[in-house]
């Protein structure tokens, strides 16, 4: 536990110091929320949503900031590789599993904090959370999404030598995961042939869970969402830990 805490502590110190990263990764979902949310608010039929489009969008954007921050935090291991710092960690008499868990917890914490910042900003834009339990439900889903995708980032980083493949992963894996998740539109509004694919996207369950917490409405039963995203988090952590064990210096 002390080693996990040590690695987590380092992540936090680096996070607090990287002001530009904090602002940078909040900006994108915030702009989308404002532009798409208010821009399409009157265009999108609100009957199928049961609420204003902008409020429908909030959980999606919270999920987005958690997703991107956590993938990025996991992939940061490549930087540690390139700057040599990974050697310092790997040569210490500690297990790889502890190091990997520390990274995962650190990345997930960062991602959840980013998500909370966006949530606070959304409150300023008019989001009303009706009951406090809902907030904690959303928080729980954010933690699971954060863990899943930090571990995903670590798994990717374990197999990559440098940052050249990063853009590829972002464009062909992370962005489709986000686009298909129902963060931007209700799953039911997609053509029927796309719906099964949406249901294969683990992020869908994260977004739906956060939406249930924040707005009280979701298209997927929150218990199913919780089970799927929790299972995915466990699986990704396992895969990440396995691949990270094989990293050689």
């Amino acid at each position: 536990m002390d080693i996990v805490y040590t690695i987590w502590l380092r992540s936090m110190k680096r996070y607090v110091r990287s002001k530009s990263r904090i602002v940078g990764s909040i900006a994108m979902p915030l702009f989308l929320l404002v532009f798409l949310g208010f821009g399409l608010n009157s265009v999108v039929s609100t009957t199928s949503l049961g609420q204003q489009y902008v409020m429908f969008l909030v959980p999606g954007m919270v999920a987005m900031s958690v997703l991107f921050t956590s993938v990025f935090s996991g992939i940061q291991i490549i930087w540690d590789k390139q700057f040599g710092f990974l050697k310092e960690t790997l040569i210490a008499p500690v297990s790889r599993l502890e190091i990997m868990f520390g990274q995962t917890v650190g990345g997930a914490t960062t991602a959840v904090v980013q998500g909370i910042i966006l949530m606070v900003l959304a409150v300023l834009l008019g989001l009303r959370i009706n009951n406090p339990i809902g907030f904690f439900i959303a928080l729980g889903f954010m933690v699971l999404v954060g863990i899943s995708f930090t571990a995903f980032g670590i798994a990717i980083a374990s197999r990559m030598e440098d940052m050249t493949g990063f853009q590829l992963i972002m464009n062909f894996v992370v962005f489709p995961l986000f686009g298909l998740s129902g963060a931007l539109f209700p799953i039911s509004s997609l053509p029927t042939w796309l719906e099964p694919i949406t249901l294969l996207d683990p992020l869908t369950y994260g977004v739906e869970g956060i939406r249930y917490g924040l707005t009280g409405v979701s298209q997927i039963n929150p218990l199913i969402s919780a089970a799927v995203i929790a299972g995915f988090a466990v699986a990704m952590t396992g895969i990440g830990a396995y691949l990270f064990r094989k990293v050689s210096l």
Partner: protein
Amino acid sequence: MTIAIHVKDLTRRFGELVAVDQISFDIEQGEIFGLLGPNGAGKTTTLSMLSTMLEPTSGTATVMGIDIAKDQDGVRKAIGIVFQDQSLDEELTAWENMDFHGRLYRIPKEIRLQRIDELLKLVELTDRRNDIVKTFSGGMRRRLEIARGLLHHPAVLFLDEPTLGLDPQTRNHLWQYIETLAREKNITIILTTHYMEEADRLCNRIAIIDHGKIIALDTPTRLKDSIGGDVVTIQSPDTARITTVLAAPWINRMETHDSEVILSLKNAEQHLSTIVTRLNEEKIPITSISVHKPTLEDVFLSFTGKTIREQDMSRRDSMRMHFRMMRH
């Protein structure tokens, strides 16, 4: 004297390439032991195996009596490492880098805080302790890494090219630190270098390593004595005739090397006039002639037939070829 490091027939292959070829040596406790050789000779590979970062293909080794293959964590606790490439977190302060290391090695808080203060003082970084490492110069980073490597009180310190890329003044400074360390902390130090004067100044014993093999192992003094006296270097367009003309019993060895003839002999100053006279008699032109005390460079040259710099060059070429072939 107790043995700190024992190496027996250690070998490492990378595919076809034999990076380290059945090397054996012992290092005594408290010794500064140098692995000297050109780039790609196998120094870092040896160090990586001894520090459990890389598994040997065959052979055995123990560090402080602990087998490197059987108890990796045991070895890791017993050693401190300063890597060839820097391995600090640039976003953290000097103190935070130290603290991170102390926590990783599970040093209890009180001892950790006390040692960090001590070591930062030793490497003269106390007043920069709260500065982000990004703002540090190369020499300061190196010093911080050495301090960090000592934090968990290792019995053996590994230094991989400790002064690579540093300016001469900083290098000199660092040498003093290393000497102080060895003296005051009675720590065993194994260092790799391809700087002759570094090996000569710091090491109690030196293993000259080339193409993965140890070709000579002794104290710097004895290695230099093996040359057989002073070194006279004669540059001339006609090296072939020099060797026949100068054949004399007081010349211990004679080697031709490009446009140079290198002679080893005792009391060279006394024989210098004889040499010049003989060459003049035979009308052999002399471009230049010089006399110096033997250095490790001469030792390396006599054992390998090449200077360490030439080895570096040719190795780089062959590596480039190797990579080019792999790409095609």
